[in-house]
């Protein structure tokens, strides 16, 4: 078990390294070096960068030296928590991303939890009561969830919320809490705003998970071990939850790895529509403005989140399915 997790962690570190190379490549993509474009940017703003300052920056980033040295210097700065400057915002990238990153994580995890919490029981119900009214209803809602783009759903909800309740459901905070420092009141305000974006972001994934759970469970319900469990005299709900659901969870858990980045990257348009202060819209703007340190950093962080999600799903799988444990040892 521990060797298995250890191996996965080593693999994860390699993957993160590969992602960092990619992010670095993205930063290097625009013509000219960073300092030149920084000076140009400053000039348009009317401020002048002295030669001395420019020279210091060149040394800091190893400009003019071989590419691997530049990469090494960049990684070293990141290790110190310095992700470079955002040209568009003219502030350190860490400051720009800062709170947005945590809010992204909060929204994503909330969407994920909501997805699972609803998909699991609905999927189980759909399989156990196959072809019942409830099953057809879940299928119907599920396909709508899959077919309707979630930004459209966000627009519809915004409209309905405004027309019916005269409420503005966008954003993650009430206006008075937008720039307020963290407090319990602000956390509570966040929690109140969270369900709608989480539902919108999670709906497509949820529909997919319901179908996966239903199909898996239908396969498992026909296996002889279910008859064995039933013939012991176990109550039916226990028969279902202890045996076939447990086995059917396996592919279900393995989707967590890609669901997390899917929610983050898929949330850009929804975040724009709903005005969510997450990194999605930031990435879009950074790419448009060729703000490469910001874009590279966001790509790096999204990549790392994907790796973490995959790692979590691997560990979950081993915990759920002891057969994997056996194969690995």
């Amino acid at each position: 078990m521990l060797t298995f997790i250890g191996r996965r962690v080593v693999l994860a570190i390699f993957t993160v390294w590969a992602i960092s190379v990619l992010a670095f490549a993205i930063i290097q993509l625009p013509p000219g070096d960073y300092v030149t474009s920084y000076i140009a940017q400053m000039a348009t703003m009317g401020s002048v960068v002295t030669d001395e300052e420019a020279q210091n920056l060149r040394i800091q980033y190893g400009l003019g030296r071989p590419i691997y040295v530049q990469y090494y210097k960049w990684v070293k700065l990141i290790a110190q928590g310095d992700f470079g400057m955002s040209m568009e915002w003219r502030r350190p990238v860490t400051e720009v991303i800062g709170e947005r990153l945590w809010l992204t994580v909060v929204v994503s995890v909330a969407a994920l939890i909501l997805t699972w919490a609803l998909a699991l029981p609905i999927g189980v119900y759909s399989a156990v009561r196959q072809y019942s009214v409830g099953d057809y209803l879940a299928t119907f809602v599920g396909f709508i969830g899959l077919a309707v783009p979630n930004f459209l759903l966000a627009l519809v909800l915004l409209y309905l919320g405004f027309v019916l309740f005269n409420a503005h459901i966008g954003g993650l905070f009430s206006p008075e809490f937008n720039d307020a420092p963290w407090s319990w009141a602000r956390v509570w305000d966040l929690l109140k705003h969270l369900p709608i974006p989480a539902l919108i972001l999670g709906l497509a994934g949820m529909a997919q998970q319901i179908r996966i759970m239903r199909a898996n469970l239908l396969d498992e319900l026909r296996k002889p071990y279910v008859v064995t469990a039933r013939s012991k005299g176990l109550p039916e709900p226990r028969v279902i939850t202890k045996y076939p659901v447990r086995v059917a969870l396996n592919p279900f858990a393995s989707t967590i790895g890609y669901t997390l980045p899917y929610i983050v990257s898929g949330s850009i348009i929804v975040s724009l529509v709903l005005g969510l202060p997450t990194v999605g819209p930031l990435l879009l703007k950074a790419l448009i403005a060729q703000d490469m340190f910001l874009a590279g950093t966001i790509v790096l962080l999204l990549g790392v989140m994907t790796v973490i999600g995959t790692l979590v799903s691997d560990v979950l799988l081993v915990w759920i399915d002891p057969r994997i444990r056996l194969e690995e040892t």
Partner: protein
Amino acid sequence: MIAPAEPALEADHTMVDVGREPVTSLPRETLLSVRNLKTYFPQDEGLVKAVDGVSFDLYPGATLGIVGESGCGKSVTARSILRIVDRPGRIVDGEIRFRRPAADGGTGTGHVVDLVKLAPDGSEMRSIRGAEIALIFQEPMSSFSPVHTVGNQIIEAIRLHQPVDRRGARDKTIEMLRRVGVSSPEQRVDQLSNQLSGGLRQRAMIAMALSCQPTLLIADEPTTALDVTTQTQILELMRQLQQEDGMAIMLITHDLGVIAEMATDVAVMYLGRVVEQAPVDAIFHNPRHPYTRALLRSIPRIRSRSRERLTPIAGSVPHPYDRPTGCPFHPRCADFMAGKCDRLEPSLRPVGDQHAVSCFLYE
């Protein structure tokens, strides 16, 4: 029909009414009495009458062999008795009268319940299922959960029906595994079923089935998926455990060799019905029903002359949606009587001591 509230133990002949005996009149020694059991599966294409009027009796400590071709309703009969018929199948008629052991576990004869009248997932049925009637079946490869240890599943069965703690149940599990001949049970108990061979898995299944000392063990093709050597060992084990524990066995198989080796009585099934029931000697030496005779003729014999051809049964089992009228066997029967067998339905009638046949040849 309302079941009598207080089941009397003695047969009360004054209570006999409407052609169906009351629930209480089970002869003292009968353990299980199935009467006119019908289990149907409504499908989009039509109604599948998987079990269509099955009747037989089973006595304590005896072994009833149920033989028949695939699809004749053997397994559905077994599942009907346990009340675990898969949706959309359901019991539409008949009685399954089962004698429960005396409540104090003593020597009393207990009382009789009609399993058909119990709720399938109700507490009374669940206290019978697994504790008094246990099931083993043919897929030893997949009859244990792939993600739980063997021990976990046996311990669960024990704790479900007996007031023991986890520790005690585990000790009992190890003891049961040892009894069924699993080597080093202390290690096996914590293994997953896919670490066990087919023979070992079937032994573990038997250990689980017998862990609560059932009075009836239903073995549904228990050796079909095993090689011949393992098959003999498993049958030997079942016989030995039956002698020790005194449970009755309902042995479902299509293998007449297994029947000859194990059974005291035999019920021959064809298309959801029992066509002949008799003690095992009578079945092999004095078969009455044309189907039983044909079945016996189709077995290869070790002393037969070389190049002698086997006599297969003409035709094949009809499609379930397309059952023949009259006697279901008439299209394949050598003794077919036109105008009778294809019009009227024969019923099970006694033709000798404990020997009953459902055929117009004997009416």
